[in-house]
């Protein structure tokens, strides 16, 4: 009995040590090019996720697209990355846009309010609103591109991350099928709009 307990303890200790060794292990990165590509990819993937204003606006775009239904729900994921890339090119070329931080914060406010109010604009008008915001979001990402160790990997990363955020929004937007889900989404829109208000005030220097 005692031997069994001791053996169990030793096995647990060995397991803990093995897990600890795995946790503290670092990748070798013997291939410099692969490391640069991997670093660029991770940096690109994290860029849209690390800025809360970008993140909530992109999710709101997906939810609004789902609320609007066809054709917005399928036109959005196809065209948004390309329109955003136009803004990205402007950022790469260092062509300045007026008040980029303010417009990015405004996008969260407007898109959150549109979700909260279930705003049903004509498709063309909604597309123009989203396109303008897409250019400003793309500009912020694109400005980081030339300084990246691997611009192509960075570009792939941020386009994929943005697309996945839209997908999250579209999936959340499917809750509109149920009355309770619709209320939840509207509440989420209020939260996004509230955060947009905060970021707008922050970008205007009203709050620290």
């Amino acid at each position: 009995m005692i031997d069994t307990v001791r053996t169990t303890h030793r096995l647990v200790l060995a397991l803990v040590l093995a897990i600890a060794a795995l946790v503290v292990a670092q990748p070798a990165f013997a291939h410099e090019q692969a490391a640069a590509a991997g670093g660029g990819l991770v940096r690109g993937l994290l860029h849209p996720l690390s800025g809360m204003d970008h993140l909530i606006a992109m999710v709101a775009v997906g939810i609004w697209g789902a609320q609007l239904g066809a054709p917005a729900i399928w036109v959005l994921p196809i065209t948004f990355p390309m329109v955003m890339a136009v803004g990205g090119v402007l950022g790469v070329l260092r062509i300045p846009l007026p008040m980029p931080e303010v417009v990015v914060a405004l996008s969260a406010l407007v898109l959150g309010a549109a979700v909260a109010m279930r705003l049903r604009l004509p498709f063309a008008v909604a597309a123009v609103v989203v396109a303008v915001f897409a250019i400003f979001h793309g500009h912020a990402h694109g400005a980081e591109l030339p300084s990246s160790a691997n611009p192509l990997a960075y570009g792939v990363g941020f386009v994929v991350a943005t697309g996945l955020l839209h997908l999250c929004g579209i999936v959340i937007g499917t809750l509109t099928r149920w009355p309770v889900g619709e209320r939840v989404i509207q509440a989420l829109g209020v939260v996004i709009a509230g955060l947009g208000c905060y970021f707008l005030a922050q970008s205007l220097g009203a709050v620290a």
Partner: protein
Amino acid sequence: MKVRFAPVVVAAALLLAQPQAADAHIIASRLGDFYTGALHPLTDLQDLILWSAMGVLAGSLGAAAGRWLVLVFPIGLLAGLILGRTFGLPMAGPAVDATMILLLGLLLAAAARIPTALLCAIGFGLAVIRGAANASDLAPETDHVLFAAGLACAGYAAITLVMALTLTFRSDDAAPAAAWRGIAIRALGGWVAAVGLMMAGLAFAS
């Protein structure tokens, strides 16, 4: 259960005391240049994106149109490799790569039903350019025949696998899920086009 640690420790010490080189990587043997040729494109993000996009485009057009690429693409890679090695043609560059990524992305996003001849022409042109790009890294001591065979096999495998995956994913046009699957492929095209557009901007800026 009773575990005897002393024999285990002795056995482990004996094993550690007489290690031999595993030679698990055939890359270190005489066929190494074949694997160098096969693996070389996989270390380049341009090749990965362009080859994958080409395979998805071929798959999205259906098996009848796409199957020609299984033959055309590896031949194009070999032609590019020979041209690049013989004449040292610097075919690829950031602007050319970006333009090709943008073109393939737009064709996918638009779900363009291009003719088979045009698909083969695009596939062959892309393969020639990427084959020449891979030739630029050929070292003098590399066995060119083995390298070329590896590159062609990698091209064949990549195009065939990606095309087959796309065909399977797209499923039958009459299936209920065909609509959203088609949209997913077009959305992927939008992503590819966006990356190509930004790379074109970067190439133009630098």
